[in-house]
């Protein structure tokens, strides 16, 4: 080959994920419309994919009953945190613009199958569903309002854990939310925790694991430490189903794995 031969340009192939929906669990490819039509559930392996908070609310709350509360509570960049890729404030503002949400949990009063409830739904698309001061505050206020109005509490979690951009105060939200949940239970009200894919770190280690009833969806990832961290600590390969919904049920930390289509009916039954 000569030095000055023109090089053929590589044909531009769009990345597979631009064309197909790819199941994150079994990697099977399907038409995006098929994935959406199937409610983000993999038709091959039954993995229950992530939903936005609004999609979830539409599927759980009785039509027209959801009234959002605490939207005035939002994140604050009190540490003026910035890292190699930029500052927290711009990242979170971009997330707000993208998702239309201003915190990682959307809270509201509603009815579920005719039973009144306080419903909180986390959105993984909002900073990885991380637990910030605003998230913790919304949950604590929800507990207090639930006590005042005698509403059972239902929270759908989806989170990577505490929001490190908010430093120690994000850690303290674990204590705050757990203390508030404790008060709700003392007041004689039930709390149903739905741990959806994924629920890990500081959120699994606080309110998500404190449900009187803990339920999840098929194949959801639930755990405390990350798989890689554990493998690097114990120098062993972990089983494939480690930290899956099925694994947690087997070990006694989940009451029931509920299919998405059955979730609303299940919650209504528990509240009824």
């Amino acid at each position, binding site marked *: 080959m000569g030095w000055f031969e023109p090089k053929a340009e590589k044909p531009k192939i769009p990345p597979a994920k631009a064309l197909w929906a790819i199941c994150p669990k079994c990697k099977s490819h399907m038409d995006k419309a098929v994935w959406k039509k199937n409610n983000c559930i993999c038709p091959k392996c039954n993995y229950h994919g992530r939903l936005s908070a609004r999609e979830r609310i539409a599927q759980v709350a009785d039509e027209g009953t959801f009234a959002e509360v605490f939207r005035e509570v*939002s994140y604050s960049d009190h540490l003026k945190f910035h890292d190699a890729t930029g500052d927290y404030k711009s990242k979170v503002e971009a997330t707000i613009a993208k998702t239309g949400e201003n915190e990682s949990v959307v809270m509201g009063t509603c009815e579920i199958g005719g039973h009144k409830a306080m419903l909180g739904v986390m959105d993984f698309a909002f900073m990885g569903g991380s637990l910030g001061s605003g998230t913790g*505050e919304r949950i604590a206020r929800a507990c207090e309002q639930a006590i005042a109005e005698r509403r059972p509490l239902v929270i759908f979690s989806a989170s990577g854990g505490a929001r490190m951009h908010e430093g120690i105060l994000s850690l*303290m939200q*674990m204590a705050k939310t757990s203390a508030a949940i404790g008060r709700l239970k003392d007041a004689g009200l039930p709390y149903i925790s739905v741990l959806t894919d994924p629920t890990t770190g500081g959120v699994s280690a606080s309110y998500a*694991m404190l449900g009187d009833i803990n339920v999840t969806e098929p194949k959801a990832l639930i755990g*405390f430490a990350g798989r890689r961290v554990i493998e690097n600590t114990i120098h062993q390969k972990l089983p494939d189903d480690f930290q899956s919904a099925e694994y947690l049920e087997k070990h006694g930390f989940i009451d029931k794995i509920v299919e998405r289509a059955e979730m609303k009916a299940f919650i209504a039954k528990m509240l009824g």
Partner: protein
Amino acid sequence: MATKKAAKTAKTAMDCVKIARDAKRPHVWDFINGICDDFEELHGDRLVNDDAGMVAGFGTVTGGGAEYKVLVLGHHKGASVEENMASNFGMVNPDGYRKAMRLAKLAERFRNPIVTFVDTPGAYPGREAEERGQAEAIAKSLEFFAGLRTPVVVVVTGEGGSGGALAIAVGDKVLMMENAVYSVISPEGCAGILWRDGAKAPEAAEALKITAPDLLRLGAIDEIVKEPAGGAHKNGRAAVAAVKKSVLAALKELVKLPPDELVERRYAKIRAYGNFYK
């Protein structure tokens, strides 16, 4: 750039991390032996195990004309390689948190105040830890200590590593030693995620605000316990004595409160954590 002298005396957050992890710093047994007269260690969670990473037992703290029968809980990093291995370097399994709760329940029944010593890199990230519910054990501890009807004094003595530290750090008075650190994630872990380079830990340590003065300013702790010149590792005895003095002062104030008021005050304090737009 500051003058050479100023640069020498100004301690960075990462300097604090190094001091907080110094093996010569007083460990849980130094505090127990220096603060309690007749400590009796008790073992086991009554479920599956006895976790050596969590020390628990009853002892008497005497001083200032008063005597308190207390339950002591503390992370045990270990003072030798054998001890380090046995206690996972202070990284506690669910069994350790459940042992702590079991004995705290007993302390509550007899109105014994509780003193906890916090020094852990974090909860143990292991296979069995996950299988036995690490997340559930920590969550339950947080809920449990928030509602406990007996005084809880917390002393962050070294590394306050995330949820594994917080599980025994929910209390009425949170003291922190001058060179201790307390963080939502280790600087190395944070640097690995947000900088994609663990070597950027000093930058992460600075950004996370993990030193005692920062945490006091943020309202996450109540009081800083001064350390002897050069740090607690230079004079362990004096460091332990300073902690004892602060613990005694906290106990004196807290044992006077009726349980209902104590629990209300603690809840109000926990409820106030956070900084958000409203």
